[in-house]
């Protein structure tokens, strides 16, 4: 009987372990590179950014009202950190059947309208979002580059105030990137925020 209980416990642990693997990256994991189509029609990989020290990867979209509130903050992040070696790379993983406003054509038009000066990539197969474990938009993964490997240093929200960036008390992404640039430990490595769920393809 005891043995049986032990086995059940072991099984439960194993099942929860596999489930957590499915959920994408945790802080400290090594992230994969990808090759996705940018709004200018060219394919982009993180390895193309030869001099980058890391990346601010943002799963984002056109249609989500929370994303819309963060547009100018994302443009400002790239402005501030591109020259310091941490460019913004935005990825739209929404399925265009579920969310027609997030089609590739709409992405191009949105990026032009808002004058995005960073990559805005189309994750049509949704594989990158699944591998990273992105759940909502905007959802940030700060990666730090060590040699050829990309280590996940921060996962979560841009700051603690979606409604009004000027009232944000905790600028999570800026704090994480500043820490990496100064060789310090990232103060807060994981946060959550209210956002639009990524619009997955029908199974």
């Amino acid at each position, binding site marked *: 009987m005891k043995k049986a209980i032990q086995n059940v416990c072991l099984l439960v642990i194993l099942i929860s372990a596999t489930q957590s693997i499915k959920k994408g990256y945790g802080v400290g994991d090594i992230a994969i590179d990808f090759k996705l189509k940018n709004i200018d029609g060219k394919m982009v990989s993180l390895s193309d950014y030869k001099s980058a020290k890391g990346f601010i990867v943002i799963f984002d979209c056109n249609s989500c*009202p*929370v994303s819309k*509130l963060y547009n100018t903050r994302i443009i400002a992040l790239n402005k501030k950190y591109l020259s310091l070696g941490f460019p913004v790379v935005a990825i739209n993983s929404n399925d265009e059947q579920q969310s027609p406003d997030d089609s590739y054509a709409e992405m191009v038009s949105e990026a032009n309208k808002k004058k995005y000066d960073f990559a805005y990539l189309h994750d049509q197969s949704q594989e990158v979002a699944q591998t990273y474990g992105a*759940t*909502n938009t905007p*959802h940030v993964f700060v990666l730090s580059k060590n040699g050829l490997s990309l280590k996940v240093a921060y996962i*979560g*929200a841009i700051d*603690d*105030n*979606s*409604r009004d960036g000027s009232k944000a*008390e*905790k600028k*999570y992404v800026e704090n994480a990137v500043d820490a990496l640039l100064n060789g310090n430990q990232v103060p807060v490595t994981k*946060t*959550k*925020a*209210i*956002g*639009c*769920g*990524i619009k997955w393809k029908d199974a």
Partner: protein
Amino acid sequence: MNRFALSVFLYLSAITIGFSQNPRVVKISEIESLIVTKSDKIQVINFWATWCAPCVKEMPILEKANLENGNIKVTLVSLDLDIDPSPEKVFKFVERKKITSRVLILDEHDPNSWIDKIDNQWSGALPATLLVNTKTGNRKFIERELREGELDDLIKQLN
């Protein structure tokens, strides 16, 4: 008239007209208390916003269940104030859609500080639905749009 005065006016007019369900603006502690306070009914707590299309789409499932299933109590927790300074849109939505379930409007800042208090599986994406049998403490958490028939199955599992 400024925005605040306008919302107060709308709110008061809603009371005067006599809606049975005037959405109240609440703090997270009220939602936490719903989850733990012993009740004969299974608490179905849905997190939504007027701007969230899949939330609006699934709402009839929750409304129907609340009317037809005497064993449950549905609470629709609006997160509109996370991005909007005024609850006006929620008031109008509830009026237009003739929502009969209880609607609460959550007013909190820094979602990272309270999302785990609802459920630590929750990423913060909307819609999300928590079902709790407050007597046994058993719970189910769904972070996506509910499918037709799914709610009944989940309720059965908690009975």
